[in-house]
């Protein structure tokens, strides 16, 4: 039987994380499946956990009056969902919805913060991984801001 610990070890986001850190994280991790169309979190909800996605896709969205739920970005398998658990006021800035069947591991946010504060080495390792994801999505967002496909003036 694949334990939560096994799933954490196999997840690309944690690749290279020393075993003892994975072990400690696993105490605060649990499987989190979502059916297609299920809302994972609401914007302004309490950001009290994050998810490592194994299978399926998630849409980040935001409710725009008159436009409904506008999808900002698609997050795929193999990466992490949710950053707002890291910083006060610990509120989601966007919402998230499962596009198809999603299998993920949820990790408790408050516990993760305590672990990071207690062990700077672990804190650096995890923060580094989050930074890489943020940088990649920031670059992609900047490219989209360039609006390269629009008709030239």
């Amino acid at each position, binding site marked *: 039987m694949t334990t939560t610990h096994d799933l954490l070890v196999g997840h690309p986001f944690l690749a290279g994380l020393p075993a003892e850190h994975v072990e400690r994280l696993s105490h605060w991790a649990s499987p989190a499946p979502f059916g297609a169309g299920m809302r994972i979190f609401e914007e302004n909800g309490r950001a009290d956990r994050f998810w490592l996605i194994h299978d399926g*896709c998630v*849409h980040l969205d935001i409710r725009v009056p008159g*436009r*409904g*739920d*506008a*999808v*900002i*970005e*698609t997050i*795929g*398998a*193999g990466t992490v969902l949710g950053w707002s658990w890291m910083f006060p006021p610990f509120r989601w800035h966007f919402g998230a919805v499962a*596009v198809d069947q999603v299998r993920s591991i949820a990790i408790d946010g408050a516990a993760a913060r305590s672990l990071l504060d207690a062990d700077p080495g672990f804190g650096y390792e995890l923060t580094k991984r989050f930074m890489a994801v943020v940088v990649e999505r920031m670059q*992609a967002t900047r*490219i*989209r801001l*360039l*609006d*390269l*496909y*629009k*008709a*030239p003036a």
Partner: protein
Amino acid sequence: MTTMTAARYRVTERRRETGDTVTLALEPVDAPLPVFRPGQFAMLYAFGVGEVPISVSGYGTAGPLHTIRAVGATTGALCGAGPGAMLGVRGPFGRGWELPAPAGADLVVVAGGLGLAPLRPVVLHAMADRDRYRRVAVLIGARTPDDLLYPGEYEGWRAAGLDVYTTVDRATTEWDGHVGVVTALYDRLDHRLAATVACVCGPEIMMRFAARGLVGLGVPAGQVWLSLERNMQCGLGHCGHCQLGPLLVCRDGPVVAYDRAGPLMTVKEL
């Protein structure tokens, strides 16, 4: 062929693709030009207006298909040409896509916006010779769902054994597909990257990021092919406008491998 004088062609069909893009099907009025290979381009002439380089995006029953976006006087005139209208055509020009790719290779087509037009012949080639290749993926990015080119054909491409994935920069409320840059679709690839041949076309910055991403995944830079674009006025290597460093894009391109094009594309004002 290698002449500055246009051959006359007539529009047999005009299909609107998006708000500012049409596909024209042409048939020759005078002697037909040689067949355009995938990735080659024609100089299309609108009477009294001018000439622009447009890639071939397929073949109809009587002649080439060209997908054109109205961005100026000449392309505007071409997009306004309805069935029966006469145009001038010169070509074929340029170096096209490296096809057929090696037998057993994995193919990936990465298209951004109008870039799918010069890549459509690659898709058609892969469909016609599907058994030659292992995996064939077509990754298509567009600004909005309404800007996707040839959406009615995607199911046919999938039915022929191609993995077609689409993404948009900005979703509409009806869109339930992927939202994000086209390179985000790379995690869908099930390719042996060292044996992958990639054909990339779209805005220049998109091509740079797309190619960089592929090379980062392990596709050799010499197997990533881009279709470059520069100001072209002759197509023959005589007018000098299309230079990119040592390359004459009309003659040494427009299809150029990334190991050659990459270092040139990062030099400002080259």
